[in-house]
């Protein structure tokens, strides 16, 4: 009994302390160093922020280069497939073009009407001005635990923590980490994401919570409320971070929301700087 315990302790000590021919450090030394780095980073000592920022910027750039072969292969296969689909797509587009030409007339009418109504409301034109920074997605490594992307704009471009990130017209997430030349965007489907939203004709208020999967879920609904399928979900702006009315997705079964923007397909996104401008005044 005691000899087996001795064997265990000898082997364990040996595993922790021994250094092979090619090993420069023992495991126990590396474990201690890793623990120190972890706690320094967690408790956010002042000197760690610039160090982390420099490390992040450097590694993101190297990662972009390292990932280029893996990006090229799907792009190349996609191009070949596209070539075959072009003809049938062209026919369909011609038909759609006719429909859009007719719609254009009604859009023009509605735009004029909208302008007139804004004049009547004496609305602040600046409120509707766009202050966006266009950014390229550097890394979108999908982790089973964290859903985030890295973009190529950071504090140098005026980006601040918490700013909303948009793909076309649709909200995709918010900034959670800023470096000098890059930033991390927490996507709406991440487990740590919470966004106040509104939907339906009654303007029901809820919180859109990331599920860790592809579809976030609506929480804090009115008591007994059953979510219908097919309702468009918008930001409510109650948190003071997002403007009200940014489209997010459509409700599906079990209170889940199918996002308008596919997070795995993001190439370029826009960061909304307007909140920063507003706060500055």
């Amino acid at each position: 009994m005691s000899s087996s315990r001795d064997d265990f302790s000898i082997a364990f000590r040996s595993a922790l302390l021994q250094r092979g021919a090619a090993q420069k450090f023992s495991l126990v030394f590396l474990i201690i160093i890793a623990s120190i780095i972890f706690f320094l980073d967690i408790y956010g000592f002042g000197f760690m922020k610039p160090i982390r920022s420099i490390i992040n910027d450097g590694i993101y750039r190297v990662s972009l280069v390292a990932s280029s072969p893996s990006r090229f292969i799907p792009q190349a296969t996609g191009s070949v497939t596209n070539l075959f689909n072009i003809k049938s797509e062209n026919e369909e587009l011609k038909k759609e073009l006719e429909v859009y030409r007719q719609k254009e007339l009604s859009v023009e009418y509605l735009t004029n009407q909208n302008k007139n109504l804004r004049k009547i409301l004496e609305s602040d034109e600046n409120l509707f001005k766009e202050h966006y920074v266009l950014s390229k997605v550097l890394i979108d490594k999908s982790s089973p635990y964290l859903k985030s992307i890295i973009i190529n704009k950071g504090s140098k471009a005026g980006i601040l923590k918490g700013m909303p990130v948009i793909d076309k017209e649709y909200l995709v997430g918010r900034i959670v980490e800023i470096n000098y030349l890059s930033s991390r965007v927490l996507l709406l489907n991440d487990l740590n994401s919470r966004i106040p939203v509104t939907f339906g004709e009654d303007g029901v208020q809820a919180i859109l919570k990331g599920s860790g999967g592809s579809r976030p879920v609506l929480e804090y609904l009115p008591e007994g409320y059953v979510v219908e399928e097919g309702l468009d979900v918008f930001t409510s702006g109650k948190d003071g971070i997002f403007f009200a009315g940014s489209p997010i997705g459509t409700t599906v079964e079990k209170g889940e929301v199918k996002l308008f923007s596919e997070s795995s397909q993001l190439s370029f996104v826009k960061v909304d700087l307007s909140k920063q401008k507003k706060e500055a005044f």
Partner: protein
Amino acid sequence: MLNLKTIRKIINLGPLIFLYYLSLSEIDSHFENYFEILSFNIQLIIIYFWVSKRPEALGGGHVFFAGLINDVVIGFPLGISSLSYLVVSLVATYVKNMTVNTRITTDWFTFFIAIFFSNLILFILLSRFSEITVSVTEISYNTFFTLIFFPFFWFLFTYYNSIVTTGRNV
């Protein structure tokens, strides 16, 4: 022109290059588009296999640095993946010290112990000390699928190892 010696050197460094490349690049083993819960951690398999079979191919320092790089790319607090990887290294080294002859079944079982402790430490540190929320279910699925895919990589790496070591002991 690359001579035979350089090629052999590159093949020898294969596991190390693969580990760094996986930590650094966008390549991931999370196939949510095909099957939402399917995700596995190839890095843990690489570390366990090579530390237990040929530790000179994968030093502790490299495991530590690969972990740091992975933390930056994923967005975890620095050092957490290093700790997780080093725990796997520790179990692999212990098993290597305690056993003479291993088969896939013994490796599979001990690998389970390694990833259990590795993911347990990852979960405890993330949930206790950081603001990042991780789901136990996600970690469990990841552990399960990593374990399921282990034999496939075991055979693959054993074959690779046989290529690398061919003629070395002659």
